[in-house]
C-alpha cells in the first residue's frame, strides 16, 4: 500500500508559513480534486487546522507521489518550493499510518491529548468523501484511525486531567470538595477568566454562584448568564462564611482578603474547607491565608504549575497510547496484506488456468478423435503442470505477505503476470475479513 503524508505543523514551521498554507473548509473541494485529477494521486485527504496542514494520499509510486504533493502545495499557494521544503515532513507507508493514528489521538498535538483534533481529522475525511477523493484504502484507514483514537481515550487517562487554568481550578475544587453539588461559589470581581471558571463550576453541578463587582450593573448582567445572585461589592466579606469557593479577580492594587478576616470566617463556618482561586494580578488574596487550616489558596502561577504537572501526567499516559498504536498498526497491516494476497493468488490461478484451457482446446481440436479417457488424461496432465508450476510462487507469496516486504512480492507477481485485480474478489475477501 503506497501511502504518503506530506505536511507541516507547529513544531516544524512558524505561524507565518502555516497560515499561508491553510485550506479553508468552504473551498476545499477544488484542491482535493486537483490532487487526484492533475497530480496523479489515487486518493487524497487534506487536513488543515491552525497548527497543521497535511496532505495524505495513496499513489502508485511513492517517490513520485511525494514529489507531486510538494509541487501541489507550492503551486496551489504560490510559494516557491525551496522556501517551503525545509518545513515539510514526509511520512511514507507504515510511518504514515502511525502518523495518522497519532495525530487522531492527539499525541502529536501542541497540548498533548487534546480532543478537538479528532473532530478536525473526521471533518477532513468527510470532505474527501464528499468530493470523491476517498477510496477503499482511505476509508478503511480513517475508520481505523477513529477506532484507535477511541480506544486510546477509553483505555488511557490521556484526556482526563485539566490543561487549562479554569479547568484546573475546577479540578482542584473537586479534589478538595469531592462532589460540588452542595457547594457555593463567589466571584469577587467579574473578569472574563472568572466568568469562564464559574461556567465550568456550574457545569460541574455547583449549587449557587454569588457575584460581587464594583460596578454592580456588571454583576447583575453576569448572573443572568448562570442564574446566581448579585450582591453589592462592599458586602462581600459578610457572605464569605457561606461560601466554599472564592474566585477573586478584581483590579484592586492590594490584598482584599486577609488572614485575620478568614480566620474569623473559618470559626463561624466550623472549619469547613475554603478554596480561594486568585486569578488577579496584583494578587487579591493574601498568600498567608493558605497557612490557615482547611484553607487552600491558588494564584495564577500555582494554577499554571497545576497545568504543567497535569501535562506531565499526560505524557506518562502517552506511553501507553503509543503501545496501543503499535498494536493497531500491526492489526491494520495484517488486514491490508491479507486483502492483497488473496485476490492476487486467485487472479494468478485464474489467468494461468485460462491459458491452460485455451491451449488444451486448441490441442484437442488438432488431435481429432480422442477417447474420453485420452481427454481426461490430457486434462489432468495440464492441470498438474499448472498447479506444480504455481505451487512454489503461491506458497512463498502467502508466507511473504505477512512480512514487511510483502507488498513488494505481491507487486512483483502482479507485474510479472500482468494481473489486474478483480473487484469482485476484493470485495469477497473484504467481507470474509469482517
Amino acid at each position: 500500500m503506497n501511502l504518503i503524508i506530506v505536511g507541516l505543523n507547529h513544531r516544524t514551521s512558524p505561524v507565518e508559513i502555516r497560515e499561508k498554507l491553510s485550506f479553508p473548509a468552504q473551498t476545499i473541494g477544488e484542491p482535493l480534486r486537483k490532487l487526484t485529477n492533475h497530480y496523479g494521486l489515487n486518493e487524497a485527504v487534506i487536513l488543515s487546522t491552525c497548527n497543521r496542514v497535511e496532505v495524505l494520499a495513496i499513489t502508485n509510486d511513492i517517490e513520485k507521489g511525494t514529489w507531486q504533493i510538494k509541487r501541489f502545495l507550492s503551486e496551489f499557494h504560490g510559494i516557491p518550493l525551496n522556501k517551503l521544503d525545509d518545513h515539510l515532513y514526509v511520512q511514507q507507508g507504515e510511518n504514515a499510518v502511525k502518523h495518522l493514528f497519532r495525530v487522531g489521538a492527539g499525541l502529536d498535538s501542541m497540548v498533548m491529548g487534546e480532543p478537538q483534533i479528532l473532530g478536525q481529522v473526521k471533518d477532513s475525511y468527510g470532505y474527501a468523501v464528499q468530493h470523491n477523493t476517498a477510496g477503499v484504502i482511505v476509508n478503511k484507514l480513517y475508520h481505523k484511525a477513529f477506532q484507535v483514537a477511541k480506544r486510546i481515550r477509553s483505555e488511557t487517562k490521556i484526556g482526563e486531567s485539566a490543561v487549562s487554568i479554569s479547568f484546573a481550578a475546577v479540578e482542584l475544587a473537586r479534589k478538595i470538595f469531592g462532589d460540588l453539588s452542595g457547594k457555593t461559589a463567589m466571584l469577587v470581581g467579574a473578569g472574563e477568566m472568572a466568568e469562564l471558571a464559574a461556567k465550568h463550576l456550574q457545569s460541574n453541578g455547583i449549587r449557587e454562584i454569588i457575584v460581587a463587582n464594583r460596578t454592580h450593573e456588571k454583576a447583575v448582567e453576569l448572573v443572568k448568564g448562570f442564574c446566581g445572585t448579585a450582591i453589592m461589592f462592599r458586602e462581600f466579606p459578610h457572605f464569605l462564611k457561606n461560601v466554599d469557593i472564592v474566585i477573586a479577580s478584581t483590579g484592586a492594587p492590594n490584598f482584599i482578603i486577609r488572614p485575620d478576616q478568614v480566620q474569623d470566617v473559618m470559626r463561624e463556618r466550623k472549619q469547613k474547607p475554603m478554596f480561594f482561586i486568585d486569578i488577579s494580578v496584583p494578587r487579591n488574596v493574601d498568600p498567608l491565608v493558605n497557612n490557615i487550616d482547611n484553607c487552600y489558596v491558588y494564584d495564577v502561577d500555582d494554577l499554571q504549575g497545576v497545568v504543567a504537572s497535569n501535562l506531565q501526567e499526560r505524557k506518562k499516559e502517552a506511553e501507553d497510547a503509543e503501545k496501543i498504536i503499535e498494536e493497531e498498526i500491526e492489526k491494520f497491516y495484517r488486514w491490508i496484506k491479507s486483502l492483497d494476497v488473496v485476490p492476487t493468488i486467485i487472479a494468478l490461478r485464474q489467468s494461468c488456468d485460462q491459458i491452460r484451457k485455451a491451449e488444451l482446446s486448441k490441442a484437442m481440436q488438432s488431435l481429432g478423435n480422442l477417447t474420453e479417457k485420452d481427454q481426461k488424461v490430457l486434462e489432468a496432465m495440464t492441470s498438474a503442470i499448472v498447479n506444480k508450476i504455481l505451487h512454489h510462487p503461491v506458497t512463498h507469496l502467502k508466507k511473504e505477505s505477512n512480512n514487511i516486504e510483502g507488498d513488494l512480492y505481491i507487486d512483483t507477481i502482479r507485474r510479472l503476470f500482468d494481473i489486474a485485480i478483480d473487484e469482485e474478489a476484493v470485495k469477497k475477501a473484504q467481507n470474509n475479513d469482517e
Partner: protein
Amino acid sequence: MSEILFYITAVIYLFATCVYSAYLFSRKDNLISFAQKVLISGFVFHTLTIAVRWIEAGRTPATSLHESLNLFSWLTVAIFLLMLIKYKQKVLGAFVSPFALLLILTASLLPKKIIPLSPVLESYWLPVHVMLAFLGNAFFAIAFFLGIMYIIQEHYLKSRKLKGLYFILPSLETLDELNYKCLQYGFPLLTIAIITGAIWSEYAVGSYWDWKPRQIWSLITWFLYAALLHGRLTAGWRGKKAAIFSGTAFMILLGSFIVINFVSGGAHGLSE
C-alpha cells in the same frame, strides 16, 4: 492444616502488597484491579484459615496473641472489602494490604499452639466480646489509613505541587467523611465490647471491673475516641486535626493491645 492455609494466606497477601506498591508507583489502573483480585483470593484463604482454626480449637480463635492478630487482620480486610462495595475507594487497599500482611507476619513469629482456655472463661460471651472488639478495631484501623491518605493529599494541595499520589487519592472531603463514618461504626462497637467484657468478667471471676491493665487501656482509648467524636460534632474538628487525632488514638490502641497481650500471653492475662 490451619498452619498451611495460614502460610498460603501470608504469601498471597505479600504478593497483593507488591502489586499495590507497583500501582502506587506507576498509577496504572489495570494494576489496582489485579491487586484487588489477589487480595480477595488471599482473603478466601484467610477465611479458611480462621474457620479451620476455629474447628480445631473448638472455640473462637482469639485466645493467644497469634490467634488474635490473625483474627484482627482478617476482620480489617473484611471491613475493607465491604466498604469497597459501598464506597469504591480502591486505593485504600494499598494501605490495608500491607497492614494485614504485617499483622500476619507478626502472628507467624508468635507461638502458634492452641492454648487451652481455662474453664472459668468458657462462655458464650467469648465470641461476642472478641468479635465486637476486633470489629471495632478494624474500623479504627481503616480510619487510621483514611487519615494517612488525608494527610498526604492535604500536603499536596497545601504545597500546591501536584504529583504522584495526588492523581489517585480521593478528594479531601470524601476521605474526611469516610473517616468520620468509620468512627461512627467503631465507637459503638468499642463501647459494647467493653460492656460485654465487663459482663463476661462478672461471669468468669465474679467482678465487673478489676482495673487490670487491659481494662484501663481500653477505657483510655474509649475516652480518646469519645473526645474525637465530641470534637467533630461540636467544635468543628475535621480534616487534618481529626486525622492526626484518630491516628494517635489508633496507635495507642494497637500498642497497648500488643504489649498487654505479649506480656500476659493472651486473653488479657485471664487464661492462666
